[in-house]
């Protein structure tokens, strides 16, 4: 749910030493954490308050893979698809998740519990296959272990 003023709760304590843009990415990251995505209202509000053009705010909001302008599930699953995880059979893990939560990569469950994405190297190659759920890193995955892990995320 987007609050009336999307900016509520996104810190205003920051002072820009150099220019308004300096704080843009940090504020977008805060919004992503708080709302699960970056609401459109916030883009125009940030544009005004930081004195950065709307297109520049939108440009930053859409550049980074951990920021999203579309609503995401409460929990975001990111399964690593890079070569070390591929060599260690990440495909059955991806299929297990598809079966467990009934969506494909790039989608969000209708109850808003999970978003599912494939991602590039998360730096857990020595314990591949690996995935992130929100900020948690899960390693040495098997299909059974993966199903168990998902149960813990409401």
């Amino acid at each position: 749910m987007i609050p009336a003023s999307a900016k509520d709760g996104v810190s205003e304590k920051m002072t820009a030493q150099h220019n308004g843009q300096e704080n843009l990415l940090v504020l977008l990251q805060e919004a992503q954490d708080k709302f699960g995505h970056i609401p459109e209202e916030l883009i125009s509000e940030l544009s005004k308050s930081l004195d950065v053009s709307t297109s520049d705010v939108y440009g930053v909001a859409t550049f980074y893979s951990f920021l999203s302008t579309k609503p995401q599930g409460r929990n975001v699953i990111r399964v690593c698809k890079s070569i070390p995880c591929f060599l260690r059979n990440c495909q059955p893990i991806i299929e297990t998740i598809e079966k467990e939560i009934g969506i494909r990569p790039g989608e969000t469950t209708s109850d808003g519990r999970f978003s599912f994405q494939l991602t590039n190297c998360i730096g857990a190659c020595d314990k591949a296959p690996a995935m992130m759920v929100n900020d948690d890193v899960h390693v040495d995955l098997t299909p059974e272990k993966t199903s168990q892990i998902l149960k813990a995320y409401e």
Partner: protein
Amino acid sequence: MPEKRIVLRNCGVIDPERITTYLDKDGFKALEKARDTMSQQQIIEEIKESGLRGRGGAGFPCGLKWELASGAPGNEKYVICNADEGEIGTFKDKYILQNDPFTLIEAMAIAGRTIGAEKGYIYLRAEYRFLLDSLKSAIDQAKETGYVRDFDIEIRQGAGAYVCGEESALMDSIEGKRGEVRYRPPFPPSSGLWGKPTIINNVETLMNIPQIILNGAAWFNQLGTERSKGTKVFSVSGDVKKPGTYELVLGSPLKELVEELALAEEVKMVQIGGATGRIVPYQMIDTPLAFENILGAGAVVVFHESRDIIDIVYRTMEFLAEESCGKCTPCREGTEVMLEILRRFACGEGSEKDMGLLEELSSAMMLASMCGLGQAAPIPVMDSLHHFRDAYESRIKKTKWS
């Protein structure tokens, strides 16, 4: 050559949550020595003399970088630690940050003292956010104990972009922008973060600094080869029995790392340096790991004989096309076109002409791309064409005319 722990000397030895355990291991002695007994020029000379080169992949001489920033005019300067370890198959900086954040903080403070910077940033990749609290706590402890003073360290988090490991894109990201690379020159030591003189070093490069200050350049530069001094930390993964982080004296043969330490068998090839790294066939397994030969940031992915080279190169290019920042045409379009051609080979629909096209595209991208991503993106394609040409030839579509 043996394993030797300089960078990883405290990993698994100290408690990364408690600074007292670091102090027991000569913690902050190098900073005190640098601050109390050495001039800025003396520190620079020591680092230059040590032969330390950047561990992030490019191998730029660290002492020279510091000297340039130190000599650059202006009072506002910055130290940046690049902890945006995004190269495929690399996890050594994560291991370092997890196990010994204090050495890194000490090194950054020495860097600040050397170039006259009061502010440092650690740019931490989004995927390593779980390290954020312990890193913050380490910084706080270093301040509370009074060892780090007159130097402020702030952590900035990435938001998921491989290209932000590239120094100019990283600085744009700290400035709150899209992580797009900059035209150079000017280089960061003269015009970096917010246009101010800046040094930007990889985590591992910085980890060497306190030991060099304490033990001297001569102690450090006796290790390694003529142009590669000291040790290197490698991240080994893929088709091996013992994946993990290994620190070896530079110049050690690839064979030692892959077969003796990581216990790989029936190796077809090794990819060294990640997605834009070199592909080394098994025949070259005795190659010494050094800047003179092959090194990169130390990602070592091992492939078993049964692996399909075209599949691997295709997946590598898919990654690069996805992560290209899009600012320059040779990289943005070149990676996509290469991907399309590789897709044809993967489906057995390649042609003789496609092989020529890959070669032509490669040279254009290497020449005209703005940063390392586009310049090095053709490397896996060229290396595989060179060493495994028959794999491409076997995927050329047979028509009734051929």
